[in-house]
């Protein structure tokens, strides 16, 4: 066990994966000598050579197109997109190609080896184009897995699982936590399950659900709520697609109340899917409407970022409103 921050845990996972399987190849803008603008790929080129860890030209559609082909060939590409805000030029390669590769070929060809890593989310004074949370765009795309870790331990285990699962994975890294989240991370090689949510705190009155950097917001809100005598059950969804309907349903059947939070805008965000599914699965057990605490239905601002973001106070207010409904 070593104390690591989230970036170090990711770097460690990549190192572990590359050491274990020489088909694992890491690339992206500035990923080579420099080790990535956040340094997630530090020292990998030194250790594994330029063939297995390298800079690409500045062209996201090319990076993912290349990665798709490489995965189809049998290699295990881990492509970095420098910021999730810059993943959209590759949207066609991801949505029309990555996600549909196996299906359209009747399983003759697949890109199951592919993992796309990209930092997402706000809270770092990144403004309009260094803050977006695009998970919902990909969650409407059957064939992809979408995974978000909440801390260093989760990051290593989920990333190793992502690299090794026979399905393509979009691995969204909460960049606000890159250096802020620190914790014990096992030295050994381990995987955490994809497609399974985790209950991080048990409670009885209300279920709080989120993923990634939003988990600590839930924790803070739950602390305040606890002081007012409200017992919160907290769930980290971890996999956005496919997602763990069962764990969430069971919790809501117990608590009768659900608050979901994400940074992305409200309309069409992934909380909508969860609310739609859970109102159906738990209809007779719901004591109050499922609440969503999210970003505004606007692009991401800079100066008033704090106002925009769904913080612990907004979540706490939603908890109260849900309890008092």
């Amino acid at each position, binding site marked *: 066990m070593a104390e690591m921050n989230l970036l170090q845990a990711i770097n460690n996972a990549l190192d572990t994966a590359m050491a274990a399987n020489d088909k694992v*190849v890491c690339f992206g803008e500035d990923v080579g000598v420099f080790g990535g603008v956040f340094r997630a790929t530090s020292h990998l080129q030194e250790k594994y050579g330029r*063939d*297995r860890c*390298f800079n*690409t*030209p500045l*062209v996201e*559609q*090319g990076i*993912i*197109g*290349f*990665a*798709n*082909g*490489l*995965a*189809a*060939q*049998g*290699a295990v*590409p881990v492509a970095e997109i420098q910021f999730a805000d810059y993943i959209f*030029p590759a949207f*066609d*390669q991801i949505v*029309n*190609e990555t996600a*549909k590769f*196996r*299906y*359209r*070929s*009747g*399983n*003759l*060809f*697949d890109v*199951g080896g592919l993992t796309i890593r990209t930092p997402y989310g706000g809270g770092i004074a990144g403004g309009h184009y260094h803050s977006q949370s695009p998970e919902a765009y990909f969650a409407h795309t*059957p*064939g992809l*897995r979408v995974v978000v870790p909440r801390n260093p331990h989760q990051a290593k285990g989920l990333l190793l699982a992502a690299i090794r*699962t*026979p*399905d393509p994975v979009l691995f969204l890294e909460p960049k606000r936590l890159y250096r802020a989240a620190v914790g014990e991370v096992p030295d050994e090689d381990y995987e955490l399950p994809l*497609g399974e949510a985790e209950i991080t705190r048990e409670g009885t009155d209300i279920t709080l659900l989120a993923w990634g950097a939003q988990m600590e917001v839930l924790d803070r809100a739950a602390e305040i709520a606890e002081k007012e005598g409200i017992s919160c059950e907290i769930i980290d969804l971890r996999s956005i697609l*496919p997602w763990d*309907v*069962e764990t969430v349903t069971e919790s809501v059947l117990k608590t009768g109340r659900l608050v979901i939070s994400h940074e992305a805008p409200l309309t069409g965000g992934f909380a909508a899917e969860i609310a739609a599914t859970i109102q159906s699965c738990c209809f007779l057990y719901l004591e109050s409407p499922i609440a969503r605490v999210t970003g505004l239905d606007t692009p991401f601002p800079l100066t008033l970022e704090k106002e925009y973001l769904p913080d612990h106070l907004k979540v706490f207010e939603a908890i109260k409103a849900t309890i008092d409904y």
Partner: protein
Amino acid sequence: MSTTTAAGVVHEPTFLNGDEFHIPRFELLRQDGTLHPQAAAPEFERETALRIYRAMLFTRVLDERMMAAQRQGRLSFYMQSTGEEGTVVGSTAALDPGDMIMAQYREQGALAYRGFGLDEFMDQLFGNEHDHGKGRQMPIHYGSKTLNYLTISSPLATQIPQATGYAYGQKLAGEGLCTLTVFGEGAASEGDFHAALNMASVLQVPVVFLCRNNGYAISTPAHEQFHADGIAPRAFGYRMKVIRVDGNDVLAVHQATRAARKLAVEDNQPVLIEAMTYRLAAHSSSDDPSGYRSRKEEDAWREKDPILRMRRWLEAQGWWSDDEEKHEQETRRREVLEAMKAAEKRRPPALETLVTDVYAQVTPALAEQLAALESHIRKYPDAYPKSAPYLDRDKATGGRDHG
């Protein structure tokens, strides 16, 4: 490290646009089937030559028959390769069978050359239970793992950067193989094309980019697609080797591809080939070219038929005769018709193919969606004639492999 040449300095503004450079066209055969006087006779074995010719001829026959079938309403859609068989078969024949081909959609000749079975063609076209693609894509979206032919994907140009990546994997694997990717001059306008060439050039990848410049992208003529001297000069932007070849001269295409493959495999150098050809047929069964081009233009190109040109050459070699031609055509026509009839009758893919292959394993949610669909179909069997009759047979034979 300097990335520009020390080409010298000028002291007044000097603009270039590439017109200074001329890209010649490589040709061996004249339309009458004789070699150009200065051309060296290509080293060609009889067997290879006949295999190439037969693949071209088969493609022509298949296209004619299937277009007719589409017109009769037996097939939902079709795309012909007519006029471009030389480009496609000639290049394929120059490859190692282990080389990967990533094509656009008009490259059935490559499969024909590599030995794709007639039933395999038909099962895809009819999307029946034997289709490798399980009836999920429109006709002509063939794929073959054993023949190293990537399943066709409709979004244009997406396969081009994928070819760069695939070939990078081949380089890492060190097996001396390369990837050939084929695309139209229209698709070459997509951003993916440029990404692919630039990355291949920077990362030194063994990939051959083959552009079928057939003059049209549906109705859009090449001169509204680009303003340059074809596609070839784009290679200069990446310091990539490029060759322009007469795409209707199958011997020249073959030789150009062989040379390109050598550069790719031996030096890890990507190469661009621009094959000048013409789409003699409509874009697809949904298209009618009379709205955007003249009969006269088509006729002029019909005279340059690549199949006829090769046939004349074969005959001059004494390798082919009228009788053989007649026999070959008749046999192929008959076989195609028979295979079509059989494929039409085969049943549709099993219901479960709706949810398999989305992920490596069927997810619980998809298994539930399938189960719900199945009971719905049982309730209204008449409304779902493609699946209802087979539900129980699937059950009985244990056809399902998910869960």
